[in-house]
């Protein structure tokens, strides 16, 4: 069933062969390039980059795809063209010598020309034909055809001849780029779009708030699907490049690997692991709360792991960041020298939003970092409104995620504003959100850090106090106790008080122990004394007893003696002891 459907589905790409331009990004948004063997109209106002686009189409065709080309210029002489593009690294002279490129400059001076009667533009056709066949060209540029309208008086003839020209180009199966000036309210000043109906590309250079942004749009591309958005493009020292950044959708894969934030205690707050790789982290806070420092820690940690990091700074220069971070013990310079860390510093107002996006895109594509810091994103609000900035950041985040780059954005919250209101409203796009804030009490400001959210990580809900020391950021537990949550000197004085109380208690215990020991000794001493007394008394008593016994024996002996002397009977004498007493009693009786 599904296979059947697939077979029946129309395949538009098969019907229309395309010719790759080799211009970075352009072939992606056109899904393959320009229509092969057909003319394409490139229109735009003065300075939009039409000539450069056309020239790059030929140069890249000749150098990358071995497709020779003819550049027919109606505005600039050959030498001017060669000089203009030499700054982009295009060696036109060499290409001409290699028979890869023909430049033909058509110069028409209206004042020299008198028109008498009927004519046609066969001369142009012949020149073009000759140029094409001289090198077997398959790519043609006509820049700018509209010069004909100002050079020749009879517009009806020109129109008829242009129609013939485009037909002729199609018959010759050359892929042509025709540049045109943009007209008032129309794509081209002379309505050339009615002749070239296959593909129309609009180049635009818009100035908003004194900042210009180059944009490209495919107005029309018959017979094929194409990107319909306006795409920012750059013209830099490497030529033309289009940035095909649109929202890439939500199809990126989510890595399960964690990477460290660079701050040990912060990692502890994040399940002891840190952030997910490929996640987007927002650090927001008021001025001077250490957002950039958190970024620097993050970058340092990445570089220490041997990964590449890109730091986009929109407020400070590279040397300023390096110097400031060195003062808290983060040496970024050595990573710059190792080639692991790159800074891109620019004022936001230097370019428009889209150009910033394009430059970030380009820098990331060239350096392929695993970690990116953008400090701060709120500065973009200076050059675009909230909606534009959010749209730009959404595309940026999508792009970073698709590359599994872990990104940290800092966001400045204006004092007085709601601290949990990320100014650019990207919080919903963000995976982890750290909030740093100044907590003012008892006449001092202290930094507090907490994790507002961290998707997929069981994170701590605690506010940590955050100290900037010469060994970087230290996170300290805020004092939480009977006195509430305390920070800064209040925290330390409370801790000191508690320590003092602890010491007091310790002393009290020691005192009691000593007392106990003393009591014991006393008791033992008394015990010894009592024992001594007892023994003395016992001895005395025993001695008395002994003496008494002796005395009694003496008495008995005496009584016996007396009895013996009195010749008393035996019965009385035999009694001894009791008998003696009995006898004594008896005697008394």
């Amino acid at each position, binding site marked *: 069933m599904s296979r059947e459907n697939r077979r029946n589905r129309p395949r538009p790409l098969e019907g229309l062969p395309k010719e790759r331009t080799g211009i970075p990004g352009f072939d992606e948004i056109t899904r393959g390039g320009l229509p092969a063997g057909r003319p394409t109209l490139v229109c735009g106002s003065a300075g939009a980059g039409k000539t450069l686009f056309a020239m790059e189409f030929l140069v890249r065709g000749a150098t990358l795809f071995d497709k020779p080309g003819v550049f027919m210029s109606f505005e600039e002489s050959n030498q001017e063209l060669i000089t203009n593009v030499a700054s982009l690294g295009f060696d036109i002279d060499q290409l001409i010598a290699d028979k890869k490129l023909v430049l033909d400059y058509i110069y028409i001076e209206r004042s*020299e020309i*008198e028109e*008498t*009667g009927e*004519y046609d533009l066969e*001369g142009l056709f*012949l020149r073009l034909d000759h140029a094409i066949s001289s090198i077997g060209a398959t790519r043609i540029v006509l820049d700018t055809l509209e010069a004909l309208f100002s050079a020749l008086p009879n517009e009806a003839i020109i129109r008829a001849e242009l129609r013939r020209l485009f037909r002729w180009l199609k018959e010759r199966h050359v892929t042509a780029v025709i540049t045109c000036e943009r007209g008032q309210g129309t794509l081209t000043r002379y309505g050339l779009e009615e002749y070239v109906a296959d593909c129309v590309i609009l180049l635009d250079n818009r100035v908003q708030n004194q900042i210009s942004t180059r944009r490209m749009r495919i107005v029309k591309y018959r017979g094929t699907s194409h990107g319909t958005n306006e795409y920012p493009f750059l013209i830099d020292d490497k030529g033309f490049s289009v940035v095909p950044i649109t929202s890439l959708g939500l199809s990126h894969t989510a890595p399960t690997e964690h990477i460290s934030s660079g701050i040990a205690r912060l990692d502890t707050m994040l399940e002891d692991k840190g952030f997910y790789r490929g996640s987007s982290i927002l650090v927001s806070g008021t001025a001077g709360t250490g957002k950039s420092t958190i970024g620097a820690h993050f970058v340092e940690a990445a570089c220490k792991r041997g990964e590449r990091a890109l730091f986009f700074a929109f407020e400070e220069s590279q040397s300023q960041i390096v110097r400031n971070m060195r003062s808290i013990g983060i040496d970024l310079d050595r990573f710059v020298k190792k080639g692991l860390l790159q800074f891109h510093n620019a004022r936001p107002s230097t370019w428009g939003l889209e150009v910033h996006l394009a430059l970030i895109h380009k820098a990331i594509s060239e350096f392929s970092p695993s970690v990116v810091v953008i400090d701060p994103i709120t500065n973009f609000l200076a050059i675009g409104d909230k909606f534009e900035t959010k749209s730009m950041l959404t595309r940026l985040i999508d792009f970073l995620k698709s590359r599994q780059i872990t990104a940290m954005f800092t966001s400045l919250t204006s004092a007085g504003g709601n601290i949990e209101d990320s100014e650019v409203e990207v919080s919903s796009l963000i995976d982890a959100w750290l909030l740093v804030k100044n907590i003012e009490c008892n006449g001092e400001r202290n930094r507090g850090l907490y994790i507002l959210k961290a998707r997929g990580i069981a994170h701590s809900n605690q506010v940590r106090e955050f100290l900037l020391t010469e060994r970087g950021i230290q996170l300290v537990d805020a004092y939480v106790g009977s006195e509430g949550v305390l920070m800064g000197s209040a925290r330390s004085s409370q801790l000191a008080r508690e320590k003092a109380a602890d010491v007091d208690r310790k002393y009290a215990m020691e005192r009691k122990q000593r007392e106990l020991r003393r009591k014991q000794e006393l008791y033992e001493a008394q015990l010894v004394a009592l024992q001594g007394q007892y023994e003395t008394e016992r001895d005395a008593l025993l001695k008395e007893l002994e003496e008494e016994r002796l005395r009694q024996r003496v008495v008995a002996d005496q009584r016996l003696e007396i009895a013996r002397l009195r010749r008393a009977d035996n019965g009385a004498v035999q009694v001894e002891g009791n008998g003696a007493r009995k006898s004594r009693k008896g005697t008394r009786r």
Partner: protein
Amino acid sequence: MKTTPSKKLRRPGNGQPAQTEESARWNLRLYVAGQTPRSLTAFKNLKEICEEYLKGQYHIEVVDLMENPTLARGDQILAIPTLVRKLPQPIRKIIGDLSNTERVLVGLDIQPRSN
């Protein structure tokens, strides 16, 4: 048929003592592309004007760009036919089949521009 007009084109003066390229005061070059009716008309018109106004002082060279396309570059030829006045200086160009005699005379500076 194909060569006849060509010969005719190349032999200006129609029996007059032909001026050489150097000696002629009026040195004219007519660019055509093949023997099209329009080219023939242009040559015929040019011939008539020269005979009438520049008799004995002109030289006409006809360049067929079909045969020699590289020559189109030198005089920056787009329109066909184009008449180029090489001499007297400065160079003037007249495009079209030269059917408007008055405009041709103005273009060649034979006759001052009328108000």
